[in-house]
């Protein structure tokens, strides 16, 4: 030991040891066989752990769902919602009982368990495959969840950006560009799902990957037992027009006035698939441009400029069509500077190319992740499926690392020139339009879009003489005129809303001359919160706790304490400004920004046609839509509100249950 210690003391610590020769990755081809019905089976034997997984994949062409957009999203949950042999509860319990898992998607069914429960989990999987009953109540539940999620996504800048770029890059009448709406979701029926299942769940377009503690012989037996009675069927082939590049750079903006950050995505359609000879070249190219946290975009926009937490790019791969994308979320104020840097880097990689050092780092990182992915035996099954599905050379994956390491700087530079299109990009931004005004034209023609990726009507102010005060005046006229409106002094309004199956009741008391306000929220008969403004003070009582509002909070709350706040803007010294005409859910509306003396802002939208207030926004309390105006005491009042707030998880649809003008209110009501 003494000797050896002396011997090892020679070790040179001044530099990193050289790596050994790159490991030979021996990828064993999975065993494979095909049933008479056309089902292709791949078996990846791996006896390390006593587990086995069965993964069924349906290989169909992308579907354009049109007026039923969103239907395929329900298929998986509907498949596992019960069979003619088992209710959903029974199915869940049987899966849980053996500690297994079973799930499905629109093109897949996946089951895994310990080896000893293999027979049971296969029985359950086959039951789901053959005998689903697609219960109506499950579809109703799923629709409700999807509509709730959709409503939330309309307010989420990243979702908005995703819809916008999909619509621009692929077009709305392309499977990758079409979007779901409340309407398309509502259109979906159990029959649609049944028809889809009958059409596409066919063995002749399916792969079954079996991974784990099983050999080919056993696999053949269990597959025959469970899947040979599955019947073939004619499956339609679908083709789509190839999306085209924009002729020059175009800027697309979604104005989201609540934004403090801009979501930037620079993108265009691209043909790139696993079976493209330059697939690997584009992997390396993308890594160098923006694939990781040492790539050019990250180093420039985050490390050097500090514009963002992260900036990345991607070059997709897809049998049909894919896209190039480069993006980041940046502070509003640096939006144009950030776009400038993106465009700079995109140009630079085409014009100057990459260097040897970048190439080596990209290769090391990509081969590292290739190697790590192999740890999961399902990777081998996916490789086998890909080879068949994309018609790849048999040695596509076995030569992957050699091909990667053989790539040269010239190869990458050639790919950059071919696939990066600095002059044909959609430069998309979801951000605060007022703050971005005039800053985006330098990058290309600017078009406005709404939060669903539809072109927003560019609305000219036709009436040059219109002012914020005139808009407010028009509104007061529209709801009944100043006399009628001022005759309303007090009011008691009861509203109801349903959230996640629970009914919320809201009672609001207004006492305008007395400068008093109270709002109580009750659930299941219990008051959950009570907000009172009176005697120049405000307090919120929630769950037995009282919180006094400070002066600033009180001033802000005051902006909404009156039955018709517009009547009081003048005496409260609020300042008003008119910020053009906007499209609010398809209706043209004047945007009026109301600021109180402490600087808090509320933004109101008044319909150009009817003059009515249709929407109100506030940074803290969220936004409220006003619908279904009805006449009462000579004044029009909205009978329906939709409230979106950062404090509530889902938009709240509230309807007025009762409305009483000029009731007599007592001090007790504002205690």
């Amino acid at each position, binding site marked *: 030991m003494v000797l050896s210690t002396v011997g090892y003391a020679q070790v040179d610590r001044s530099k*990193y040891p050289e790596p050994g020769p790159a*490991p030979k990755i021996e990828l064993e081809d999975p065993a494979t066989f095909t049933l008479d019905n056309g089902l292709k089976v791949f078996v990846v034997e791996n006896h390390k752990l006593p587990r086995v997984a069965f993964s069924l994949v349906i290989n169909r062409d992308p579907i354009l769902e049109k007026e039923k957009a969103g239907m395929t999203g329900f298929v998986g949950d509907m498949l596992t919602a019960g069979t003619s042999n088992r209710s959903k509860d029974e199915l869940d319990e049987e899966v849980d*009982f053996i*500690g297994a898992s079973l799930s499905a998607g629109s093109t897949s069914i996946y089951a895994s368990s310990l080896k000893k429960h293999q027979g049971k989990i296969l029985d359950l999987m086959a039951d789901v495959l053959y005998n689903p009953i697609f219960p109506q109540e499950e579809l109703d539940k799923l629709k409700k969840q999807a509509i709730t999620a959709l409503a939330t996504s309309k307010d989420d800048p990243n979702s908005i950006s995703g819809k916008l770029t999909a619509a621009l890059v692929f077009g709305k009448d392309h499977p990758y560009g079409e979007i779901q709406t409340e309407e398309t979701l509502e259109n979906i029926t159990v029959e649609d799902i049944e028809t889809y299942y009958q059409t596409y769940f066919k063995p002749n377009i399916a792969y079954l990957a079996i991974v784990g503690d099983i050999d080919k012989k056993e696999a053949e037996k269990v597959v025959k037992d469970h899947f040979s009675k599955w019947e073939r069927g004619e499956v339609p082939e679908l083709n789509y027009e190839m999306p085209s590049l924009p002729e020059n750079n175009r800027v697309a903006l979604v104005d989201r006035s609540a934004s403090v950050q801009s979501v930037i995505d620079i993108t265009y359609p691209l043909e790139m698939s696993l079976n493209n000879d330059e697939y690997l070249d584009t992997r390396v190219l993308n890594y160098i441009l923006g694939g990781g946290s*040492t790539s050019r975009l990250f180093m420039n926009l985050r490390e050097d400029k500090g514009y963002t937490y992260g900036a990345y790019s991607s070059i997709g791969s897809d049998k049909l069509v894919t896209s190039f994308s480069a993006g980041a979320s940046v502070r509003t104020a640096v939006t144009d500077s950030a776009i400038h840097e993106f465009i700079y880097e995109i140009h630079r990689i085409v014009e100057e190319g990459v260097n040897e050092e970048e190439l080596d780092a990209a290769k090391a990182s990509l081969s590292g992740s290739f190697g*790590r992915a*192999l740890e999961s035996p399902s990777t081998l099954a996916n490789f086998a499926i890909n080879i068949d599905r994309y018609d790849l050379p048999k040695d596509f994956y076995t030569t992957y690392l050699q091909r990667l390491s053989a790539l040269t700087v010239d190869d990458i530079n050639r790919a950059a020139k071919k696939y990066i299109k600095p002059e044909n990009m959609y430069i998309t931004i979801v951000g605060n339009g007022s703050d971005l005004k005039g800053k985006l034209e330098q990058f290309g023609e600017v078009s406005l879009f709404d939060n669903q990726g539809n072109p927003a009507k560019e609305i000219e102010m036709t009436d040059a003489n219109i002012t914020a005060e005139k808009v407010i005046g028009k509104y007061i006229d529209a709801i009944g005129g100043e006399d009628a409106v001022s005759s309303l002094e007090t009011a008691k309004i009861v509203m109801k809303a349903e959230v996640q199956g629970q009914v919320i009741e809201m009672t609001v008391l207004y006492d305008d001359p007395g400068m008093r306000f109270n709002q109580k929220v009750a659930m299941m008969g219990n008051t959950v919160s009570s907000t009172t403004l009176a005697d120049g003070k405000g307090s919120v009582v*929630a769950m037995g706790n009282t919180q006094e509002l400070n002066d600033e909070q009180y001033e802000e709350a005051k902006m909404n304490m009156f039955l018709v706040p517009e009547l009081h803007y003048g005496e409260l010294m609020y300042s008003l400004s008119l910020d053009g005409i906007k499209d609010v859910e398809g209706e043209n509306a004047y945007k009026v920004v109301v600021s109180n003396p402490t600087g808090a802002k509320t933004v109101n939208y008044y319909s150009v046609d009817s003059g009515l207030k249709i929407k109100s926004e506030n940074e803290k309390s969220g936004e409220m839509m006003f619908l279904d105006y009805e006449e009462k005491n000579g004044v029009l009042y909205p009978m329906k509100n939709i409230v979106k707030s950062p404090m509530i998880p889902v938009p709240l649809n509230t309807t007025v249950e009762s409305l009483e003008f000029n009731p007599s209110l007592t001090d007790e009501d504002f205690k």
Partner: protein
Amino acid sequence: MKKFALLMLWACSVCSPIIAQNDIEFREFTLDNGLHVIMHKDNSTPIVVTSVLYHVGSKNENPERTGFAHFFEHLLFEGSEHIGRGEYSKKIQSEGGTLNAYTSNDITYYYESLPSNKLEMALYMESERMLHAKIDEEGVETQREVVKEEKRQRYDNQPYGTILPETLKRAYAEHPYQWAPIGSLEHLNEASLDEFMDFYKSFYVPNNATLTIAGDIDYAQTEEWVKMYFSEIPAGAKEIYRPSIEEPKKVTEIRDVVYDNIQIPAVIQAYNLPPKNDPDSYAMDMLSTYLTGGNSSLMTKELVDKQQKALAVAAIPLDLEDGGIFIMYGITNMGIKAEDLESEIDLLVKQVQDEGVSEQDFKKLQNIIENDLVSKNATMSGIAQNLSQSHVFYGDTDHINNELELYRDVSREDLQRVAKKYLTLDGRVVLYYLPKSEQNQQ
């Protein structure tokens, strides 16, 4: 249906002696300087995971200098005599690898996963860290800032983020488990460079470390490299401080309220557990799965789905070397008082104590546990971690292969027995997390 269930039970009881787990093979040796080395060879994928477990956690800290072990988790990425500042992570990543580290009350664990031809590099880098890590003012200053941000993000700014520190503080009167690994920022600010150096020399020494290498390796070559890079590292000169403080058994319930930046009240209950290697630990783990593991578990089904008194409930056995705590928490549903939820939780605990667990549920529990245990060893990083913990916590690396047997030894009666023995009302800690606004009132 009942007949079918019985039949199924019978079938399973017949197959239960067949142990599902395939053994994890390994070799181990100890260098003269005390470094324990475990190797697991699996050539199926050309990757290798290299990990070092330092047997130092927050419990080894000076009560006046808490947060040191966690601080070192950061500090030891600063570099070494030969590895430049900030280079450690970048180098691993640019060689196609990934890396991470964590700190608990008992241990600090570092690991990296790399293509297998870079094993020598990984060993070199870990040996640099053990031999002469860079500990200087600049690194300490940088990492203080990082740890500050981490504390803000993960504890102070996170609703309910302080549950662990607040619970530990009350669950232990004497034992150093009373503070959480994140420790105190004041202590870190007050500490001098000498103190950090001293902590490094005391605990980050080969005789307090377990080096584990799992993956595509050659045993002889790996052993040679390990000796080449690690033999010259001197053993620690000092005796390693391991607290031998016995936590006195509590006889009265401790009840307290924490006001936090939250909207919805939460109830936390904590019960003291036996030492990690006590056989009852397995029963307590199964009990926690029975109570809150998954949608069909007792408390989730009853309190979240049926009564809808809780938004979420969880039972987590934090099993520690010297005896951890069994933490149960429930977040109340809209309009439900903490008291109401607590009494429902107590009723369910009492139900288990009085009636035990049904045969059907017990079998399901065994199946879930078995599936979980098997899956734990699905990756090289999982295996490396289990091997090193088996050695350090159970003094027997082969524990990795015996674990399932130990769970199998747990009987239905054991579940009822441990529920009665450990979930006792008189020695527990009960905390209410309430909105800060409520505090203003009092």
